[in-house]
């Protein structure tokens, strides 16, 4: 947890419990009724409540409570468990100790009831296991602690903050197949246009002194009567920049376009970093955040952490000119995950295209506008909306920006399948495009 939990000794402020007030109210009304109506027998209704109050209200109560919070995990991936243990102890036995953990949106309780209680005890340990359902920064708690003493007539309440849990988005398996035309001079996994020492076959040429005998293509040599050798493509690394459109997030919580975009971004980052490419990330939305392209396994965690900032609402239009060259190196393949709902995102896409970046837009809008059943106007509006979307995609394609749809949008009544297509399958048609195709 990022924030130090409130552990240690805490002073208890005791107040009369609702039960004591209730008993006092009933007793008062009964006594008043007995006096006003002149019926002493009605005092019998007040007597038990008064006696119970008189017996339990005075007396000593513990002045402080010792609390210990154990939360071993501060960072995890979606679907992983976070264990929380809270222990409270005081000097004398209490009637009741109850603890409750409010579960934030984005987490769910895997083990243990949210509210736990023990009776007639001097200490209590509550264990919870939360399962991270969505990526993001979540704040479980604070744990509410309630102690009751002296026949339940006195109660003290404490609040124990737990801190923040960072839940990283889980990466889908992805094979890095899209590469920009310009590859880095660094050794990598992609077959470059230039000849080199790779394993990918690139062509056949005449033998020149210095060529290795093992490269001689004997079949062609026999046919032509002169020595010919096989050429191989150089293996080079690529630069990839993933841009996530955080201007809009349409869809139900946990399944918004932003969630899909972030999942796509981490899948791409994981796939390319796995084969030694350099990956950077740019968050569009509000003040732009970026992370320059870099390689290595640790960089994946940097990207995952940077993507946590994507859940922000802002009306600021980012100035892409201000993003330094290191964040958008020339020739880097830029993949923009966007629902194409915000004009600012469209302007940025057009700007990136004008700057001649090899660009791919992944449309992550999965939900169509909801319409009322049997509403002819609604159906017409939906048709217009679909036409508008189609026109938008067409205009981007005319600009030279290929647009792919990741996961077909669901119908207005959610009758299409719920499982998203794999990103690999969504990007497969782009492998044939000359700008992005593998070379040779």
């Amino acid at each position: 947890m990022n924030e130090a939990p409130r552990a240690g000794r805490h002073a208890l402020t005791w107040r009369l419990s609702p039960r004591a007030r209730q008993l006092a109210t009933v007793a008062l009304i009964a006594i008043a009724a007995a006096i006003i109506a002149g019926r002493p027998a009605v005092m019998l209704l007040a007597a038990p409540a008064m006696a119970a109050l008189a017996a339990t209200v005075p007396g000593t109560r513990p002045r402080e409570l010792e609390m210990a919070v154990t939360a071993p995990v501060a960072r995890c991936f979606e679907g992983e468990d976070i264990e929380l243990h809270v222990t409270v102890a005081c000097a004398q036995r209490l009637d009741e100790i109850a603890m409750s953990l409010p579960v934030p949106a984005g987490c769910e309780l895997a083990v243990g009831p949210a509210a736990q209680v023990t009776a007639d005890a001097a200490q209590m340990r509550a264990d919870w296991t939360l399962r991270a359902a969505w990526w993001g920064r979540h704040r479980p708690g604070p744990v509410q602690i309630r102690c009751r003493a002296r026949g339940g007539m006195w109660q003290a309440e404490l609040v124990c903050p737990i801190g923040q849990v960072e839940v990283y988005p889980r990466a889908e398996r992805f094979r890095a197949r899209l590469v920009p035309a310009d590859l880095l001079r660094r050794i990598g996994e992609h077959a470059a246009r230039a000849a080199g020492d790779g394993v990918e076959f690139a062509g056949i040429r005449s033998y020149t002194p210095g060529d290795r005998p093992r490269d001689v293509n004997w079949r062609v040599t026999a046919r032509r009567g002169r020595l010919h050798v096989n050429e191989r493509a150089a293996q080079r690394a690529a630069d990839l920049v993933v841009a996530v459109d955080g201007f809009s997030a349409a869809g139900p919580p946990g399944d918004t376009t932003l969630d899909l975009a972030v999942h796509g971004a981490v899948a791409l980052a994981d796939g390319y970093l796995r084969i030694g490419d350099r990956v950077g990330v740019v968050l569009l939305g509000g003040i732009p955040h970026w992370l320059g392209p870099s390689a290595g396994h640790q960089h994946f965690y940097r990207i995952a952490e940077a993507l946590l900032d994507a859940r922000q609402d802002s009306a600021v239009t980012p100035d892409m000119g201000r993003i330094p060259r290191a964040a958008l190196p020339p020739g880097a393949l830029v993949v923009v995950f966007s629902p194409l709902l915000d004009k600012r995102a469209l302007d940025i896409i057009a700007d990136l295209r004008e700057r001649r970046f090899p660009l791919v837009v992944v449309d992550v809008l999965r939900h169509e506008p909801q319409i009322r059943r049997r509403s002819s106007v609604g159906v017409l509006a939906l048709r217009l909306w679909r036409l508008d979307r189609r026109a938008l995609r067409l205009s981007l394609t005319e600009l030279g920006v290929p647009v792919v749809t990741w996961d077909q949008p669901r119908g207005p009544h959610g009758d299409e399948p719920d499982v998203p297509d794999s990103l690999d399958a969504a990007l497969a048609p782009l492998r044939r495009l000359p700008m992005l195709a593998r070379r040779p």
Partner: protein
Amino acid sequence: MRASGRLAGLRSAAHLPGRIPGPRSAVRFAVTLAALAAVVQCTIWPPATAVIAAEGLIILGILLALDMPWRAPRATMWRWLRRQLPSWLTGAVGTAAVLAALAVPAVPSAWIAVTGLVAVAAAYLIAIPRS
């Protein structure tokens, strides 16, 4: 993963945070009203003294049981009930004392009635803090 996320979303939309077990204020209010209705009924149509005494003990029992941790394990519930026993027994002793006092003949007096009423109101206002 996605389904679980949706469930979490529904839960957050339904505002079901972890809540310390106990009766909601509306339930507590309804039970108090029922107890007060019993007081009014006993005042207007007084039944036998023994019935009123039993009613008083039943009301005390209900008010004590209102805070019972119903969802707790059985052992915890038994411990909790055992802890309430002294309160209920004290109430029974109080009832017995009032029954004994009622058996003693007394002369009715308006001054005694007014003094008692003021004492009760003062006790309620002074002893029970308003925080």
